[in-house]
């Protein structure tokens, strides 16, 4: 009814839903996502076992590649975009990432320091 008066009216999107594209365009989106994900995976596996690059850079490269691949999955498979309709999804994701970062980062940080402050194991054994 209001389609003609308001040219920009469109339907809301649920998480994981795409804007109304044709079937061909939607399939193409998944194909692009699959190709990108396969490329990133192949790079990860190649980097992990190669002598071609400076060895200490490998863990950093693996983590960067993993984050990139998660981004590809989020955009092409879960259809998380920056569109105005996705604000709620992105906010929930941001909060989830904050908790993940606090849990993983905090644990690794604290436990690394605890390990450094622990007396050697045989020390503890002797006191008993």
């Amino acid at each position, binding site marked *: 009814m209001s389609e003609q008066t308001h040219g920009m009216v*469109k339907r*809301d999107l649920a998480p994981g839903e795409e804007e109304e594209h044709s079937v061909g365009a939607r399939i193409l989106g*998944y194909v692009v996502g*699959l190709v990108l994900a396969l490329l990133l995976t192949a790079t990860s*596996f190649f980097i992990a076992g190669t002598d071609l690059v400076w060895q200490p850079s490998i863990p950093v490269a693996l983590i960067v590649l993993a984050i990139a691949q998660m981004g590809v999955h989020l955009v092409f498979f879960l259809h998380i975009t920056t569109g105005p309709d996705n604000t709620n*999804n992105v906010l*929930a994701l941001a909060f989830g990432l904050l908790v993940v970062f606090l849990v993983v980062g905090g*644990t690794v940080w604290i436990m690394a320091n605890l390990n450094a402050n622990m007396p050697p194991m045989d020390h503890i054994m002797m006191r008993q």
Partner: protein
Amino acid sequence: MAMTATAGHAHADPHHIGLVIEHPGPAPKRIVTAYGFWIFLLSDIVMFSCFFAAYAVLSGQTAGGPKGAEIFEQRNVAIETVCLLLSSFTCGMASIAADVRNRFWFYLSMTVTCVLGLIFLVLEFREFADLIARGYGPSRSAFLTAFFSLVGCHGLHVSAGVLWLLTMMAQVFAKGFRADILRRMTCFALFWHALDIVWVAVFSVVYLLGSAP
């Protein structure tokens, strides 16, 4: 032009994002359901992050047992990864087929997804059985406990996903593409894609970082 069209509806466009979304009252059920499931998935990912944190802390505590580099088989992991990636793709095809209500492509894509998921599970189960047979079970060292709980937890999720997948096929077979069935299908697709994201973290952090010399 857009300005004049939306000028009278400023109340419907409070953030001036340029589109008028007219649905007074709560959002459609389709959106509420999928959004709630999205929140659940994020909490699931938070739970996985606890397992990852435990693994990161304990990965060096081998108690004289094997290190990661000695027990991981890259070829096996690569096949598992490709299986999950392809199954994520076919799951996307299944959700497109469900949207256009095409039964043949829906059943075909779901079957392929199911087979790929089962291949993944078989490979993982064989890896676990092989480790336990060699005496490297979860009770061998703190590292192996963390490894088995993290990877096993992901495997349990995939098993639950396969059961859910079969349920969705049965429901479409019995009830057709009804609105409530399509909502469940949306949630299933979200679940399956999220599992793939967790697996990306697993193979990068556990298998690839862990097998560095």
